[in-house]
């Protein structure tokens, strides 16, 4: 009896998971569609979108491929500066600027990835960290282009003209949905990648690299492609952040920003589709609310983070999923 019921439960769980999984982009989009009304203010909701996407990009590499990078700020920052420079310095429109940001982040990811994927574990983390610091320094020194220490100001995209409509981005709700459009497209791409044979292979590499190699897969190529896609997604997040803030702070490239991706993914649940968003929302919300009533907000944020690492190692969303499909 017992084995049968267990098998049945597992079957049901699989069905449930499948139904949810098949519609995960739609569900995520619907949730994010009403999300701004659950947050204290719109600018924070937009931050969650952007950092959620950033963590999703990071999670593709860490959660699904199993490679822990400490240098993802390089892609976030390059995407932000790539987009920002095209708008602020060259006066080109947003529809050229956003792809420019994504493309420049992908190029940097290709260069860093090419060097870094030869290593694994802690060495991989250290190499990505070191190379990301190099990227930081390049942007810091290129003052005439990036504004250096003062940051890049003037990434002003006030309105978007589309055939038939004009969107005023100075209105926070409009800006939110404009950014949400890109985030949903990116989520759809990630979902397609994960559902494809490619997605299965990278998870296979995470589980046992030697076996994947023995099956005939070119592990290095899979790693590099995933690294570049991950970098491009983070670049998109950076580019959207440049438009959201209308400035690009040099802080976009510091190692703390790399750490944010790690913290948000772990808090939400690595290797889950929607976990990074939950992590980003939880982290930013805790930080925002606690900072309003105490200057020791870091203490509270740190305690919450430790509780999750110690007692809920699957993260918030990972624990919810586990509970749902028990």
């Amino acid at each position, binding site marked *: 009896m017992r084995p049968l019921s267990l098998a049945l439960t597992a079957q049901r769980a699989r069905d449930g998971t499948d139904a949810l999984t098949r519609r995960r982009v739609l569900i995520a989009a619907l949730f994010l569609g009403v999300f701004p009304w659950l947050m*204290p*203010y*719109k*600018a*924070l909701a937009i*931050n969650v979108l952007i950092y959620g996407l950033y963590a999703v990009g990071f999670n593709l590499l860490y959660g699904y491929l199993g490679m822990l990078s400490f240098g993802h700020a390089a892609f976030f920052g390059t995407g932000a500066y790539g987009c920002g420079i095209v708008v602020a310095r060259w006066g080109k429109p947003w529809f050229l600027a956003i792809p420019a940001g994504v493309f420049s982040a992908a190029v940097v990811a290709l260069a860093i990835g090419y060097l870094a994927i030869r290593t694994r574990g802690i060495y991989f983390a250290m190499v990505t960290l070191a190379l990301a610091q190099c990227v930081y320094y390049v942007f810091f020194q290129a003052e005439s282009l990036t504004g*250096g*220490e*003062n*940051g890049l*100001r*003037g990434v*002003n995209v*006030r309105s978007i003209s589309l055939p038939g409509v004009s969107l005023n981005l*100075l209105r*926070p709700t409009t800006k939110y949905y404009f950014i949400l459009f890109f985030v949903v497209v990116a989520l759809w791409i990630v979902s397609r990648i994960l559902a494809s044979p490619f997605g299965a292979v990278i998870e296979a590499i995470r589980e046992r690299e030697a076996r994947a190699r023995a099956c005939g897969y070119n592990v290095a190529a899979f790693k590099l492609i995933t690294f570049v896609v991950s970098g491009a997604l983070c670049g998109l997040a950076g580019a959207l*952040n440049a438009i959201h*803030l*209308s*400035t690009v*702070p*040099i*802080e*976009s490239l510091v190692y703390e920003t790399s750490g944010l991706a790690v913290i948000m993914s772990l808090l939400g649940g690595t290797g889950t589709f929607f976990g990074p968003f939950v992590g980003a929302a939880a982290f930013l919300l805790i930080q925002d609310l606690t*900072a*309003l*009533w*105490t*200057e020791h*907000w*870091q203490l509270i944020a740190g305690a919450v983070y430790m509780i999750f690492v110690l007692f809920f190692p699957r993260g918030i969303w990972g624990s919810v999923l586990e509970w749902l499909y028990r």
Partner: protein
Amino acid sequence: MAASAGVAVALVPSGFAALRAQQVPIRVGFPVPLTGPYGAEAKDQVRAAQLAIAEFNESGGLKGRKAELLVRDDKLNPGEAVTRTLELIESYKVDSIVGGLSASVQLSINNVTKERKVLFNSISQSDVINEAQDFSIYTFHEALNPHMTTGAVGRYVFPRFGKRVVFLAPDYAYGHEMVRGFLSVGRQFNIQVLAQILHPLGATDYSTFFPRIQALKPDLVCICNFGRDQQLSIKQATDFGLKRNARIVVPILLYTARVAAGPKAYEGVIGGTSYYWRLEDTIPSAKTFNDRFRKAYGGAVPSDYGSLGYAGVRTVLEAMRRAGTTDVARVVEAMLGLKYDFYKGPEYYRACDHQAVQSVVIIESKSKDMESPADVFNILHVEQPAQTHLRSCQELGHTA
């Protein structure tokens, strides 16, 4: 404890007051870095700004309409500052933003406020904010800028203490701007620059620089760094014995840094500041301001950056009162018409870049004859406000 409680209270938007008032209060957003390395200065700015709000309300507000301060922690991060500024503008519909305690933070806030036509009064040093590219008619700069500060310090020290100068500066925007300012004023006095030494930001060991500096036999060593870097480098220079043959000069001599480092390390160091509380000996408005501050905060005196929080908020409220409205175009006009003496003697905003034309105080750190623990500097000279001490409007790229 009382101080942090005060800040905590300031952080809560005073919802009850708003409910009681017949009209919506005038809201002033105040993003400052309560956490991080400039936390001490930021908290002092909040205290002083609260004082300006209280004064305004006690004297009747704007036709009975009261003001309130919405404090936000920008965490010394431009991205966070922008997010908070957007919150203040979009959710609270603030009538003005005052704040910012680093060049990059104030420039980011400024980019947001000028896009949304909200008046912003910046209260920390930057040269760039005066320049045409970042300026807008909604941008005001209550603080000094590096050019004014180094100019005043240079005009005081170069004729008195010699012309052989070595610069030691951190390798980032602040250090570069300060050195540029000293070089600019130095040309008038034909100073001889023996060396310009750059150190990494946040360096802890300066001992390797001092033998080289001593070998150059300078009259003056200009140490152009800030905060903890300033504390450490000056302390190590003192231990090394650099002061035996040369004077140490800093562009900005911070009250809080001097109090933290103690009298010995800073003994004899000369620098500039926007405000030192002993101005009360000669300036009545400083006395009034200090007394109010003492009364409100248990006898403490306001710091240099703290008092900027007071001036920054008070000028905006005063302009609103004169304009009789919070309509931004008319408030800007009223700001430009102000000739005010709120805490340090006469000031006004220059028309082309909205820089507050004001005095610069030259001070020297002392270790003897201190009347109280707060009595840490001697005022050597007060350079009176003059537009000629600012970079010209043409130089900044303004056409008007």
